């Protein structure tokens, strides 16, 4: 496996969406290629950062206000 091959299957690898033999070849390449190993680790870090810090927060007060406004639309609330 070459670096280009690893780059192409990176998302599938992270999704766990690869055949066993493909995964074995990818892991063998990663063990030998510091650059690809850094890319994989960096991508995992990015995913973790996005998951932990990437959400636009609505805020408690606005969430409650919006729910009150929606309640006015309930079928029997008129």
């Amino acid at each position: 496996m070459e670096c280009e091959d690893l780059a192409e299957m990176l998302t599938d690898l992270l999704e766990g969406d690869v055949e066993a033999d493909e995964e074995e070849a990818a892991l063998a390449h990663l063990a030998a290629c510091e650059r690809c190993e850094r890319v994989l680790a960096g991508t995992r870090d990015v995913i973790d950062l996005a998951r932990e810090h990437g959400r636009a927060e609505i805020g408690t007060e606005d969430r409650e206000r919006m729910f009150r406004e929606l309640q006015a639309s309930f079928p029997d609330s008129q």
Partner: protein
Amino acid sequence: MEVRSQEQVVLRFGDLFNTNVDAVFNVAQRLVWNRADAEDIVQTTFLKALTRIDQLRDSERVRPWLLQIAYRDAIALLRRRRDHPTDPSLLPEHAASQPGPGDVAVASEMARIVTEALNQLEESERIAVTLRDVEDIPMRDVASIMGVGLSAAKMRVHRGRASLRIALQEDARSGM
């Protein structure tokens, strides 16, 4: 079992709203970058959910369904902005390099950094990453929400992550 009483409707809808509103708002905000517009999209999305409250039982399917409504509404708004670029009521609230007003409540420095990095991504890549990585939506649902095939969704996520990695590295370098 059908919903029979107003109380049951309120309880079920309240649960639906509380479980999903943060994700719906996040996706809307990451597309339109205008808090008022994002809130309008949230309201529209949950009003549609209210009309189908009896049919929304499978919790794993509900969130992608809600996000698809929000996504389509947001894309429609972006098209109106493009068609009417001088209409002040349709403008985003900030320059492209600034975090959105929906992020005012986000307190941490790391959240600001990630938000600014996300904002540098091309629109379809930003939403693909927001759906897959921020909201943990399965890849097949990312594809469905965005109305593309699975391969295209994977490509958008792949490119988005690569762009985000570069943007975060540049931010780290500039902060040295």
